[in-house]
C-alpha cells in the first residue's frame, strides 16, 4: 500500500524577511574584523554609525579615526586628518550597508541574487554581475538579537566580519 501525499503550493519565504524595520535614525556601534591570510593578525576596527532614509554616517573610531559619509547621492571619505573628499567609487558597499539597516530590499536585489543562508536566520547574497563576483564572491547576513552580523567572502581569500549592534532607541 502506498500513501500519496498531495503536493501543495507553498509560498516561498523571502530570505530578506530577516531584515527588521527600525525607527530612523538608526544608530548603533560596529566592529569589523578583516582576515588576510598574509597578515599575522586580523585587522580590527570599530566605530559608530547612523542611518536615515537620505543619509548614512559610518565612522571608524579605532584604531585610526576616519569616516564615510553619504549625503543624498554624494559620498565622501574623511581621513584621520579630517580632510574630506568625494569618493564616488566607494559608493556601492556603503549603499548596501545602509540598505540592510533600513530594510531596503529592492536596493539589495539590485546588486545581489538573494538566497537562504545555511541557517534560517541568515541570507546569502551573491553579486548579480559576473565582474563583481571576481572581487566579492558572497555576502552573508545573519540576524542577531541586537542587530546583524555580515560576512564578506572575497575572491582573494580575504574574509571580513562586521557586527552591527543597533541601539535600543531605534527598535
Amino acid at each position: 500500500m502506498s500513501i500519496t501525499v498531495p503536493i501543495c503550493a507553498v509560498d516561498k519565504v523571502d530570505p530578506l524577511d530577516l531584515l527588521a524595520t527600525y525607527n530612523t535614525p538608526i544608530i548603533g556601534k560596529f566592529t569589523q574584523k578583516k582576515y588576510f591570510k598574509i597578515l599575522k593578525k586580523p585587522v580590527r576596527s570599530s566605530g559608530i554609525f547612523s542611518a536615515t532614509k537620505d543619509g548614512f554616517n559610518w565612522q571608524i573610531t579605532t584604531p585610526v579615526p576616519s569616516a564615510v559619509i553619504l549625503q543624498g547621492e554624494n559620498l565622501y571619505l574623511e581621513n584621520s586628518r579630517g580632510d574630506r573628499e568625494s569618493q564616488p567609487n566607494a559608493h556601492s558597499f556603503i549603499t548596501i550597508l545602509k540598505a540592510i539597516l533600513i530594510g531596503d530590499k529592492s536596493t539589495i536585489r539590485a546588486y545581489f541574487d538573494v538566497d537562504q543562508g545555511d541557517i534560517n536566520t541568515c541570507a546569502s547574497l551573491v553579486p548579480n554581475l559576473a565582474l563583481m563576483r571576481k572581487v566579492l564572491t558572497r555576502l552573508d547576513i545573519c540576524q542577531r538579537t541586537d542587530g546583524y552580523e555580515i560576512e564578506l567572502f572575497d575572491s582573494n581569500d580575504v574574509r571580513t566580519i562586521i557586527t552591527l549592534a543597533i541601539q535600543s532607541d531605534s527598535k
Partner: protein
Amino acid sequence: MGRHWLVILATLCLLLIVSYFSRISFNNDLFSSLPQIANQGKIAQAEQIFFEQNQSKALISIGGENSRQATLLLKDRVRDFHWKDITESQFDIDELAGELVKYRAGLASESYFEHLQSDDSFQLFFYEKLNETGNPFVNRTLESDPDLIISEYIESNLQNLINISWDAGVMQTQGQLTGDKRHWLILDTLVASSDIQEAIITAMQIEELLQNLSNDFPMADIRYSGILFHTAQNASQARTEMTVFGGASMLLLVLLMSYFFRKLSMVIWIFSTVLIAFAAGVVMVNAIFGHIIIITLVFATTLIGISMDYCLHTLCKHNSRNTSDIAHQHLKTGLVVGYITTGLGYASLMLTSIPVLHQVSIFIITGLFVALIVSLAYQPVASQMLSFTLPEHVKTRLRTVRRYRYIVISAVVMILLTGIFIAPIQFNDNVRILTASSSELIKNEAFHRGLLDHSDNQQYFVFAKDMQTILLNEEQLASSLTELNSDIHVNRVSSWLPSLDKQNRTYQRLKSAESAGVFDKARNLFNNDAQTFTYMPLTPETALSGSLNDLLSAKVAITDDGVISLVGIVGSSPQQVLAIADSLEIEIYHYDKAGDLTSAFKQMRENLLLWVGIAIVFMFIILAAKFGVQMAILSSATVALIMFSAIYISTLFQGALNLFNILSAILIMSLAIDYVIFFHLNGLKTHNFMAISLSAISSILVFGMLIFSATPAISSFGLTTSVGVLFAYLLSLLLQKEN
C-alpha cells in the same frame, strides 16, 4: 542602327570595362562627408584616427527607476552578440590590478608620496586603507603589493575620470545640476566604417534590444547615441531618398516625354542617354576617389534633369522644320556653350573643402559630357512628335514681354530691395545641416555629452616622434598647468602610463623611503618577509597589449610619422594651454571639431559669394566674345538677378540660409545661362520654346524632389535650385531673340 545608338553602346562597353577594373564601392562614413578643415596632413590624420576609433561605438544610458537592474539585463542580453562591452573591460579590477602590481615600483601616484613622511604616517595610511569597508583594490593587491602602491594608483586614476564612477562594476554618471544617476553600457560593435549594411543591421538590433528593455522596465529612461546610429540613419535615409527621388523623377519624366514624343524609340533614347550619363558619373567618381559617398548620389539625381535638357534640345530641333546647317550649328553652339557654363558652375564646387561636393562636381561634369557626346551624335529619325505650335496671341504676349524687359527687371530689383529691407537675409552655418539624423538622436548626443564631459573640457592633439616623448610632453604640460592653478585637470595617457623617466624617478623616491625605514612598521605586520622594490618599468608595448589597452587605446595612436595623443583639459583656456605648450616646445593642436566646422562653413559661404562674383565676370567675358557686349551686359545682369531672387525667395520659405543655398545659386547661374543663350539664339520658335519649357519642367521636377529630403543641406539645395530654374525660365524670356 543609328549613329547615336552606336555611341551609347560604345560608351556602355567602355564603362563596363572601367568598372570591371575599379570595383565600385559605396561609403557612408560621415567623416568623409564633412569639410576637411585641417591643412596639415597630420592633424587631418589625427582627426581620422580618433574618429574611426569611435565610429563603431554605441553609448547607452539608463536612468529612472530600476536603472541598475535594467542595465544588468541589457548586459546579459548583449552577450548573444559579438559586441564588446567596453565598460566591463575597463573596470576589470582583478585583471587590471593583477597586471599592474608587477610594475609597482615605478607607478606610485603623487598622492601616495604624501604618506611617506615617516614610518608612523605610513602606518596610519596602511591601517586606514585596510580598514576601509569594501575596498576591492586593497584586498586584491595586498599580497603582491604590501605597500598598497597599486591600490592607491588605480583609485586616484579612477577618481580622475571626471563625472564617471562605478556602481559595483557598472559605469555610472550623476547629472551635474539634477544629481540624477544613470547607468551606462558602452559597446564596441566592431562594425567597419565601410560596411554600411552591417551598420544599419547592428543599429536595428540595438534599437530592438532597447525597445524590449523599455517594455520590461517601463519606468526606466533609456537613451542611446553614437556615430554608429548616425551612420545607419543617414545611410538608410540616403538610400531611401535616392530610390524615391530618383524613381519618382524618372517616372514623371517618362510620362512627360511619352506624352510629347510619341515614339517609343525616342523615349528609350532619352532615358538610355540619362542612364548612361549617370553610370559614367558613378564610374568616374569611383575611379578618382576610390569610393562613392552615398549622399553624393542624392545630389547626383539632379543629373537626370540636366542631361535630359541636351536630349530635349536635340530632339526638338530635329523635329522642327528648320533642319538647315545653320540651325544645326546653332544647336551645337548652344549645347557646347551650355555644357561649358554648367560644367564651370559645378567645377566651382571643387573650390569648397567638402569631399561630397567634390564627388558631385566630378559626377555631373562627367555625366553631362557623356550626355553631350550622345546628343551631338544624334541622327534624326522619323518621329511623331506631338504637333504643337504656340498660339499666335500667346506668342504676341510673350514678345511684348521683351519690350518691357527694363521695366520688369527694375520692378523685380525694387521688390527684392524692399523685401530685404523688411526681412533681411540671415545665415545658419551649423554643421548639423549635413546630417539627416533624427532630432531624438541629436538630442541624446547632446545629453550624453553633457553627462560624460565636463562643460569646460577642451581637447587637444599632442604630437611627437615617439611614445616616450609624448608621455614626457604630457607630464610637463600637466605639471606646468597645475603649478599655475591646482584646480586644472588634465586627462591624459601618461596618468595611467607614466614615461620611463617618471617611472625611474618614482622608483628612486620609493627606494630612498625604503632605506629610511618608512615601510618597516607596516611590513612587520606580515607573516613573511615583505617584498622589497624590484624595478620593472611598464612599457607602452606592454600597456597597449594588456588590460590597460581598453583605457588607453582611445587616447593614443601610433602612426608612420610618430605618435599622437588626445588630451582633455578642464579649467584652462585654449589660449593659456597653447601658450604654455609653445614655451615648452610641445607640438599641440586645439581640437574643436564643431566650432571649426561652423567657422569653416561660414568662411566657405563668404568665399563662395566672392566666387559667384568672379563667375559672373567670366560669364560676361564668354558671352561678350560670342554675342557682343550689349547682350553680355543684359544677360549677366539678368542671370545675377535670377540668382539673387532664388536666394531671397528661399529665405522666405526656409528662414536662415546656409552654404548650400549659395552653392545652388552657382548651379542656377549655369542653368539660367543655357536658357538665356537658347532664347537669344532661337527666340520663340516652337522647337526652342518647347525644348526650354520641357527642360525647365524636368529640372524643376527633379530639383523640386530634393526639397523633401530629410538632410537640410539637400533640401536647401533643392529649394533654391528649383525656385531659381523657375525664375530663369521666366526672366530669360525677356532676352528672347527679336522677331
